[in-house]
């Protein structure tokens, strides 16, 4: 315990100065959803499975894929069900 007391008194803080120093995201962490739109076939699977209704896929004629980041709960279910694997989870949080 004495050791801890001294390291608390003279050591560096346990926290980071966040916006300036950032920890590298861990590999495999679920940060944000990315779509490689060139590979997407607009099948609508992700829209149907998403528990938070965060994705809207426009069908055949107008082919669109819209994603509302603020609805997303970052569960990764869409990544799992996408048939062509164009969706992926970027470990980075924020931009």
């Amino acid at each position: 315990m004495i050791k801890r007391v001294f390291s608390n008194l003279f050591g560096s803080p346990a926290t980071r100065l966040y916006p300036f120093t950032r920890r590298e995201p861990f590999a495999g962490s679920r940060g944000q959803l990315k779509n490689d739109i060139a590979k997407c076939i607009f099948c609508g699977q992700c829209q149907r499975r998403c528990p938070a209704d965060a994705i809207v896929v426009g069908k055949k004629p107008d082919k669109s894929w819209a994603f509302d980041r603020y609805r997303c709960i970052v569960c990764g279910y869409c990544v799992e069900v996408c048939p062509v694997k164009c969706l992926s989870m970027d470990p980075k949080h924020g931009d």
Partner: protein
Amino acid sequence: MSKRTIIPFGPQHPVLPEPIQLRLVMEEERVVEALPAVGYIHRGLEKLVEKKDYNQCVFLAERVCGICSFLHSVTYCQGLEEIMSVTIPDRARFLRLIWGEVHRVHSHLLWLGLLADSFGFENVFMHAWRCREMVLDLLERTAGHRVMLGVSCVGGVRRDISDEGLADILRTVDALQKEFDEFVPVVLNDYSIKQRTVGVGKLTKEQAAELGAVGPVARASGIARDFRETGYAAYGEVGFKIVTETAGDCYARMKVRCGEMYECLNMVRRAVAAMPAGAINVPVKGNPTGEVVARLEQPRGEVIYYLKGNGAKNLERMRIRTPTFANLAPLLAMLPGCELADVPVIVLSIDPCISCTER
């Protein structure tokens, strides 16, 4: 008889992490009666199962609680697996145990910090949360998220832990053990902590049994009841030692939880050593028909899920009874007779989790 006053404790109170109100009937400094008022964060999650299919509801169940999230989804999945007669692979059972126990450590550390905060011991609060950060980082490295692991699915788990990850778990567990060895004895033997907790908020064994206390609250009153004893997931193979105390006061509840943290680490070590190879999930076909009551032991006690499916992809009814709901009645039995200054400590000693109580 002296004059009675009613003091509203909460819903916003510095020591309460979540809103709950206790109407305390006071006679001078002593509480004679307490009445809880909840409903500040009722979300109606149970209703949502009618709108989402049963696979999506795994994520819904996980979001019932912000602390023992993973264990909620495991309860839900175990229930559905029982209805649909799915046997999950061995490796999935072990992975559920490992994540579940790591989650328990994080929950107990969070609680220890909050309890210390309630009697004004900021150092313990900070140190417990510093250790908790190690646990959360471990969860993020292995599961992809700090709290909402998102790794359960009906039929197993979604994500495997590599050998590298298992070694990482062992390293972190050893580091945690070192930290615990250093500060848990200090916490348990500290004079001022004992002054604030020993003999405070007593719950006798009879009261605990009568009022249906669960989890550490029951175990601290000498009731050796822990649902892990039934050997769900891999608890049967890994083995597990129940931690009990008999005093039934806040100190006993603290001791039970501290003992459990060590026990969790041991279980994780044994599970990693005995980890079977193989698949991590089995495909599940069809929709659930039938009803089931699924139960398991969360950090706060026994959780209960009643699930009813009628052959459609949406469940007909999901009902959740969280451990804090069961521990509210015992809390009302602990409060009468205590001093107003002890109320925060007693309330926190049941480890209240209000948002999952109200769902």
